């Protein structure tokens, strides 16, 4: 679905996306407190929440653009720009630090410093704290992670 959305976006950039986001917003508009649901769904479908999406959502929910923008910018999950091809999330919270999580984060940042298509993000806890260091590579959670594990995952990515 995400792929179809992206292709449509390329053909008729603004309007197709705007229409899709409006559809999403309308789908949830009748529920109690729908804004986060709409933002999640928009991001699922389009990879990020663009400024134009914010305008569209604000219109459907009868909120000010500032209100929607304020919500989007408050939460770490919502991205304002397109998602890179690969996302490596590494837990930097205490239990993972106790087994080398902070150093793993730094080394992973260095490992991918030269790649624009890879993003290394910090996360505070995946609830996998007994088997740290925890990392998630393209959405897949890993336990007792080493830099070698991350490098092995990288070697499997098509370039």
């Amino acid at each position, binding site marked *: 679905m995400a792929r179809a959305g992206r292709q449509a976006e390329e053909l008729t950039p603004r309007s197709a996306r705007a229409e899709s986001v409006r559809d999403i917003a309308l789908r949830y508009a009748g529920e109690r407190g729908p804004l986060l649901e709409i933002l999640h769904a928009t991001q699922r479908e389009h990879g990020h929440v663009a400024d134009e999406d914010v305008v569209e959502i604000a219109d459907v929910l009868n909120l000010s653009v500032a209100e929607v923008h304020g919500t989007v910018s408050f939460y770490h999950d919502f991205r304002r720009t397109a998602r890179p091809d690969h996302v490596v999330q590494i837990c930097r*919270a205490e239990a993972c630090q*106790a087994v080398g999580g902070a150093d793993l984060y730094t080394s992973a940042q260095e490992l991918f410093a030269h790649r624009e298509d890879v993003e290394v993000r910090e996360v505070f806890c995946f*609830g996998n704290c007994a*088997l740290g260091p925890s990392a998630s590579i393209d959405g897949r959670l890993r336990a007792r992670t080493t830099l070698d594990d991350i490098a092995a995952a990288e070697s499997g990515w098509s370039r």
Partner: protein
Amino acid sequence: MTASGRGCIAWVPQDSSARAVGADEVAAALSAIDRVTVRRNGTRGMLWREPLVEVETERGRVGYANVTADDIPALVEAGMLAGAPPRATPGGAEDDHARRSVEYVGIVDDDPWLTAQDRVSLARIGLAEPTDITAYEAQGGWAGLRRALELDPEDVVEEVVTSGLRGRGGAGFPTGVKWRTVLQAESDLKFVACNLDEGDSGTFADRILAEADPFTLLEGMTIAAVTVGATEGFIYCRSEYPDAIERLRDAIAVATEHGYLGDDVAGSGRAFRLQVRVGAGAYICGEETSMLESLEGRRGEVRAKPPIPALQGLWRSPTVVNNLLSFAAIPMILAEGGEAYAARGVGRSRGTQIFQLAGNIARGGVYEAPLGISLRELVEDIGGGTRSGRPVRAVQVGGPLGAYLPADRLEVPMGYEELAEAGGMLGHGGVVVFDEGVDMARMARFAMEFCSVESCGKCTPCRIGSTRGVETIDAITATPAGAPGRDQLFVLLEDLCATMTTGSLCAMGGLTPVPVRSALTHFPEDFEGSPR
């Protein structure tokens, strides 16, 4: 390869920690074998043993721990499908130095790590397929709800009060008292909200229970709803728990189909509709009023109290807000009576607590025991000490806002008041172990940094103070001992801590000084050395 005799049932956990160490691959390898039926249970809570494969035999379920997909052929060859012990691995796998060898657990139900526990809320985890509602019923499920529906709401509240249950989310407020407030509030519209934000590092019991035994949560929330007169409920789950979200949504669908949720809860004529809402990566949304703001679709900024959520919660209506573990204790309290729950525990800390053993620990997992067990028992006897094998240096109890206790303070009993006296807090029951390699100045800095990243921004001591705290600790560790101005930096840091403690609106800013000060008090030598 064929299983001997009439075929074989093998259980492979679907828990997300188990999946993170290869459980899906193990399940696939087993499914490929003729006459093997693979069933996916939740975890038993022995996370250091995952993937823990269990094979059904006439003697009971026989366990094999730390199994990988590659181990399956040799294990099957050695008679795994009949519950036989594996053969000693010849040689050792040269291509994978970190490989953990398979451990033969024997009859899992007889494992000492399990039998020593007092599992109340966790009684059913790992036994069945999580959304198998028939199995849930067969294991005593819905008995609490049935009894709650027979009693007057006041009497249900009385049972909860009698149990002595205190909120397991961290603050320890008596659950029965909270429910009574909502029950007595006059309103046409009331809500029940489950706090499944579980942002504390070192805590994962909410996740495990939601993934392994979601009906227990649903039953607890439904009991709350029919008692206080709420018709709508929300489970606010953090986005970091995708498996839990999926499992809960499935469980809600199944429970609705079977009439335990919906317009006519268990034939009582009362309605309760429940849905899962997903957070968006913000620690502060675990604070209850911030969670309510987030559920309503706004920035997760903390609300000033009063009004309390019990009177004006979601959309200003009376709302029961409880942690998942608080709700999960309820079915048993109703089924067996509040007295039975209150009979466990220490002092004013009644019942059981689910401890989560994490960090640098040999046997990490969830362990349910009566409150009052000592920290040393948890870390050493049950947790097996550090994973690295080096001595324990510090233990952080109660999440990122909890104190770091040094190794010589571990005799403290795990109870609300008992821990407070030792300068710590129980919080959500997380126990995070560090070995002697830990740099406590770095951990103190992290506490301030975490607060600066996760502050909701509403009040200045927390928003600005935490940033200044990071800078000040950096200045301290960059200044050699004895250098001019160094002492003033410690005064400044203490001043910041005092301001945050007294001037913050919520416990985020108010408690961040706790880990910082405990590091300074118990590990001053880490702040002495040359710049790190």
